[in-house]
């Protein structure tokens, strides 16, 4: 009897805490994990996993800067991570709780130090490039066999876009990636923070704006795979997923991904723990689970993105580790650029320009 009372009292007392202590809330990009891993995590750790998705760094940042997002793990890209660290949105990782930390790949870690010095706040989840996905058959039908599918000319030359509009073109709704691409196209520094240089991207984008069916950062996977659109500026792995979905559906759609010859943005998605995470303990458990070589390999094999985990490489399938669109060779690497966050004043100019371009005013 006494024991029952005690248990009852204890469970009432701990009730409030227990609700958060065995729950981990993860906020990751859409189409970015093998969902079997989510079940596996719950089975292995006994923790309840709440997994939500987003498709825009900007939306994630709004939630982070509002505070109290309620998430334990979030996945901003490098430049956004850097801004949010400055704003005090994240807590330092306790590497003592991350037994698998040694699996990380030093090559990627040294690159992400640019955004997160000493990688104190984050681990790399996956990385990739921003490029062009095409429905090869349709594009060649419209532009001829010598269509410039490996060049930004395909999407920034109004003459090409006018013809492609009929079969549908999507652009990422991500100013921090499309504007650098437009600058790369005209031979300017894609990472320029000079307002006058950034302004040069506007006429390029305004000229092709009428031919863009939609600015969206996740719909293009299905739209490409179904044949609803023929060209998308998108993220490498997403376009490769579209390629696979089309192949599985056997609908005759043949999708190809190219990092443009004028240069392509290389980005890093970093897992970090918000400063006000309700369950930092569980967050570390999740990060450690993700850093396991087999789990990370499963994730990459599923979503076709390269990861920052060296130990996972022997476990990767050949069409992942062997594909230069995913794990670029030396030659491709030379062609990739990275960007850094805009200062506040420039940021305002960039976002304003983006709103204007999108709304076509």
């Amino acid at each position: 009897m006494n024991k029952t009372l005690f248990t009852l009292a204890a469970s009432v007392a701990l009730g409030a805490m227990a609700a958060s202590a065995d729950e981990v809330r993860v906020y990751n990009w859409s189409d970015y994990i093998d969902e079997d891993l989510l079940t596996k995590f719950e089975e292995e750790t006994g923790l309840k996993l709440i997994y939500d998705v987003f498709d825009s760094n900007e939306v994630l940042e709004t939630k982070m800067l509002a505070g109290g997002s309620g998430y334990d793990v979030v996945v901003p890209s490098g430049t956004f991570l850097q801004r949010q660290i400055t704003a005090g949105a994240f807590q330092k990782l306790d590497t003592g709780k991350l037994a698998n930390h040694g699996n990380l790949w030093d090559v990627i870690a040294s690159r992400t130090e640019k955004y997160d010095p000493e990688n104190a706040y984050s681990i790399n989840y996956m990385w990739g490039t921003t490029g062009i996905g095409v429905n090869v058959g349709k594009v060649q039908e419209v532009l001829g066999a010598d269509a410039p599918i490996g060049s930004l000319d395909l999407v920034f030359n109004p003459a090409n876009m006018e013809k492609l509009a009929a079969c549908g073109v999507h652009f990422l709704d991500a100013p921090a990636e499309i504007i650098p691409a437009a600058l790369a196209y005209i031979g300017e520094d894609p990472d320029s923070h000079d307002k006058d240089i950034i302004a040069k991207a506007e006429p390029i984008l305004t000229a092709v704006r009428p031919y863009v069916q939609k600015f969206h950062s996740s719909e293009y996977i299905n739209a490409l795979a179904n044949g609803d659109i023929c060209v998308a500026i998108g993220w490498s792995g997403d376009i490769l997923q579209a390629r696979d979905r089309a192949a599985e559906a056997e609908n005759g759609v043949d999708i190809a991904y190219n990092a443009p010859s004028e240069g392509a943005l290389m980005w890093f998605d970093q897992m970090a723990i918000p400063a006000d995470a309700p369950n930092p303990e569980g967050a570390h458990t999740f990060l450690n689970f993700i850093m396991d070589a087999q789990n990370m390999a499963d994730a990459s094999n599923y979503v076709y993105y390269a990861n920052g985990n060296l130990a996972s490489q022997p476990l990767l399938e050949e069409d992942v580790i062997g594909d230069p669109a995913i794990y670029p060779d030396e030659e491709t690497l030379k062609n990739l650029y990275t960007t850094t966050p805009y200062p506040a004043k420039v940021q305002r100019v960039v976002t304003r320009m983006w709103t204007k371009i999108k709304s076509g005013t």
Partner: protein
Amino acid sequence: MRSITNFATTLVIGAAAIYGVLSTYWFLSTLSGPGFALGFASVAGSLTKFALQAAISVAVIYLVWKFLSEDRKEPVVKNLLIGTPYLWLLALFLVPFVIVLKISLSDTALAIPPYTPTLDLAAGWKGITDFFSELDFENFVWLTEDDLYWKAYLSSLKIALTSTILTLLVGFPIAYGMARAPTEWRATLLMLVILPFWTSFLIRVYSWMGILSQEGYLNQLLMSLGLISEPLIILNTNVAVYIGIVYTYLPFMILPIYSALEKLDGSLLEAAEDLGCSRLSAFWLVTAPLSKQGVIAGSFLVFIPTLGEFVIPSLLGGSKTLMIGKVLWEEFFSNRDWPVASAVAVVLLLILVIPIILFQRNEQKQREIDG
């Protein structure tokens, strides 16, 4: 003089009561929040604090009440009762508005929350003066400099007006039919109008995406009937936005018109026809004027929320659909510029004040007629 003292007494009692309620809330929130995790000491601490606050609150109310002369008790109680709705108004409308106004006067910053200055009460009076000295109207000036905002306001006005008229055209015949239907059917018909509210609004808008898309049901139907050979592009255009708005707001138009038409005395129409009116002119001379109040009420109920509509244009409209609600979302989420977003919201509210006042006047007039 008496009434002023009564008023002051009411304020003191009200303030003490609110203080008591708030301290209970703080206490309960530390219990369920992180405070509990800190262990027994902190719970005991907050319990002491709560006991003190509750004692102050109860003591103030008790003392004021005790020393209040008998003849004053009644007016004070009356004041408290009258004051309650104003308290709701204050808490649910004025306070949020002042917060938005405050953000609209600040500047963006890379911080949590993403604007500056924030009010630092810990710094005392200096914190407050510093706070006010840093506020300015820069964001409102910005709105006038960029024609995007004016275009968005105008385009929202146009879309709201057009869809109000369309909703009226669709809604009036339905309301008319319902009011003329046999009495035993009316309850069922009314139910059918209200029924869609039982499903989430978002899901209903999504289902329109399924109907209107290029591979959607509408195109499949039209093509199988041989009416069109190429699928119509409706989704992601303004046409889809109008369809969505008319569909969503239809009940708001039907219900007030129905209630006006239902009250209509059928013998008036018979009289008009007896006196030589055709059915059509009887409609224009009798039914239309008598349903005017319902039409006006319905139109405002559709117009006002449509002006700031965000969900429908963002799901059904294309990137060419320019509406102020969408611009507001962009400013807030994509641009992470809370101050400008707040300034847009304040201006939107100011624009809405005019139709809201007109709506109130109409309601007032209606009440006078009914009374």
